[in-house]
């Protein structure tokens, strides 16, 4: 509590203390009254009950006082929350994309990451996008959460006020690996952030891509979350491993018909764009989204280049 990690922590934690404080007071007060009545008016001590039917005054008292208290709690809950809806104009705008079961973050200059890296003391607006089912972006240390609903773009904003690494969870149940849909938020000093960004900027990335075969494809695979379901070390996850897949002979099923094929450029392209058509034996249909709108032909080619390096 009161870590000060974001601009919302203090106001939110104040509301927690207000509500929990009032609640504990009444919980103890009412419980103590009940226990006292049970002892005081036990039939052994108090053999004849007084036939009281009620009291209008008391009914009014114990309606009006709680009414005032809940209105106070409502007000502070709303007041603590309302800034969450109004992002400052000069905020850093990052596109956060969720898919089953990974995250990616796209910065205004086109840099993409799978970890959210933000500068200290700077307002950040996240455009929340889901490409498949409902997810929810939750950073407990920041006291912030908002659903990522396919077909619409929700927004959230916050200011990271303390450098450090914080957990980022998916809070809305989204299927098999929901509990592994986890990444981190890193809050960096402005200078550190600028250095990091300079390294990750496009020109640098292209330079790396030129130097190592498949490096561009590897980055695409990381930022598009492919590794949540496909391993590169041969282990079986939700989807087939990428290791040695290029050029391999595999058994696939198309509309219930099984056949053997060799994995080539055309097959990989089809599996990325229409993943539910040819299903590799031993795996389930309906696990993967089409990446038709996420990856263009050139990027798919880079991915194929990377896969062919995984022997």
């Amino acid at each position: 509590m009161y870590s000060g990690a974001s601009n919302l922590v203090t106001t939110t934690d104040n509301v927690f203390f207000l509500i929990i404080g009032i609640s504990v007071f009444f919980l103890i007060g009412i419980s103590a009254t009940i226990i006292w009545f049970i002892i005081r008016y036990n039939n052994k001590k108090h053999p004849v009950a007084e036939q009281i039917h009620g009291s209008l005054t008391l009914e009014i008292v114990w309606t009006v006082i709680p009414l005032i208290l809940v209105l106070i709690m409502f007000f502070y809950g709303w007041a603590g929350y309302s800034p969450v809806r109004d992002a400052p104009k000069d905020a850093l705008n990052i596109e956060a994309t969720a898919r089953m079961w990974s995250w990616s973050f796209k910065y205004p200059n086109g840099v993409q990451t799978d970890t959210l890296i933000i500068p200290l003391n700077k307002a950040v607006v996240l455009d929340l996008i889901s490409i498949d089912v409902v997810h929810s972006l939750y950073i407990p240390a920041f006291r912030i959460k908002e659903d990522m609903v396919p077909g619409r773009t929700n927004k959230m904003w916050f200011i990271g006020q303390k450098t450090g690494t914080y957990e980022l969870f998916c809070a809305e149940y989204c299927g098999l690996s929901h509990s592994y849909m986890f990444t981190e938020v890193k809050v960096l000093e402005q200078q550190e952030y600028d250095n990091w960004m300079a390294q990750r900027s496009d020109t640098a990335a292209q330079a790396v891509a030129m130097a190592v075969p498949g490096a561009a494809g590897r980055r695409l695979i990381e930022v598009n979350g492919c590794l949540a379901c496909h391993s590169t070390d041969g282990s079986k996850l939700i989807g087939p491993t990428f290791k040695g897949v290029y050029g391999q002979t595999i058994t696939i099923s198309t509309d219930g018909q099984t056949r053997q094929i060799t994995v080539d450029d055309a097959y990989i392209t089809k599996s990325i764009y229409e993943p539910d058509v040819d299903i590799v034996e031993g795996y389930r249909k309906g696990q993967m989204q089409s990446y038709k709108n996420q990856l263009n032909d050139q990027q798919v080619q880079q991915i194929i280049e990377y896969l062919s390096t995984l022997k």
Partner: protein
Amino acid sequence: MENNHLPNYLEYRGKYKGLLGWLTTTDHKRIGLLYMYSMLTFFATGAVLGILMRLELIAPGKQLMEAQTYNALFTLHGLSMIFLFVIPGVAAVFGNFILPIIIGAKDVAFPRVNLLSWYLYIIGAIIVLTSQFMGDGPPDTGWTFYAPYSLKTQTNVVAAVLGAFVLGFSSILTGLNFITTMHRLRAPGMGWMRMPIFAWTLYATGWIQLLATPIVGITLLMIAAERLLGIGFFDPALGGDPILYQHLFWTYSHPAVYIMILPAMGVISEIIPTFSRKPIFGYTALIISSMAIAFVGYFVWGHHMFTSGMSTGSRWIFSFLSFIVALPSAVKVFNWTATLYKGSIRLQTPFWWAMGFIFVFMIGGFSGLVVGSLATDIHVHDTYFVVAHFHYIVFGGTGFAFFAAMHYWWPKIYGRVYNAKIANIGLGIFFTGFNIIYFPMFILGMQGMPRRYYDYLPQFENWNVVSTIGSWIMVTGLIIIITNLLRARKATGKIVDDPWDGPTLEWSIKSPPIVENFEEIPVVTTGPYEFK
């Protein structure tokens, strides 16, 4: 006694004998017991699933099962506990058994429809349970069937959804039956304002069942139509809206919480006067608060969706109304407490259950303020805090009241008393275990552990271990409680008509009651809780 020759409902032989006699009965008391035993079966199933989930969560990483199995497990746990136990719950069992007697009627208004309700309940239950074994595996959507996941998963969602749809009809017909019974069949002299609180809460519940259940019925059919026919209601890929699903689902499923809790509050309102030996404090206030909960409860569903991306206006309006709906519950707690004042309290088992109810219900209610408030809900929404809040209200509220009702009316049902000492020990163990399971979940939620997690980060381990240990304690208590009651049906119980000197009409007749309850319909001349 001159009426010894009249057979009670357990001995009575109609057209058929034995099991067939039970399966074709239209006697509200036998139907109440049909519900009770089927519900206890599903409750036991749900409890075993809960124990397995807690075992899986005792440490990070895989313990017993794969993630897919765990996801199917919490789905079935939710489906069986919610649709097969707590929604029909107190109303179907004790509403059926007690309502006609407590208002001085021979049966419900439509006895055959009543039997039909039970059959619909069983058919729905069978469909839900067989969905586990057919198609491409057990549903893994959670009991909320959130779109578009429920449209995309390959598991057998359609069958589960259709099962819930059939169960809805059972609930609607029961609500209709009870409302009509109270309008038409009250004993002469029993004006509305002389009707016991338990009947009043069933009346409020009946209207919710009648008006809200069709909405979820339609919604579930829409899911089925979208999966089978590809009609785009909810999937944005087909032009639908996932938020529409959430609105439709909670428009029913929030009032459904009041379907569960109102009759539970009714039970507590019967028990407290009997064991305090004085009238319920604020009879009228309790009735008004029940109707207020039923009414305002329709307009708070959006508080399940504070993080969904609703407009700012909807968010504060739903938050405001959610705080308002807290008031009638607070009024009830104050009136129950005031009933004890200057009473002559008898510390018997049903009374202890009622006190246990008030305590856990208060914790459930107060934690409801945290999730009703916008700033705090944003943090704890979809975390273990909500799991704790929900179990304190639904299991702590409805579950405690269900067991309270069993201990209060068991002598009425079987004409025998149970071993009070064992019952109290069972309650003590159950109460302890209950709080050890669920209270740590509040802390886990505050620490930020999301719900429906098969696996978790190491910092959440300690409280998960505590919670799992609590589940073993609670189940021990449950076994003691249930076996003690079941044994009291025959061997151990002493024969009695009215062990509590109860004030309401059900205690004026023999136990077990005769087939049509009353030899002569009583004439009511006073309010329900008058002690001489």
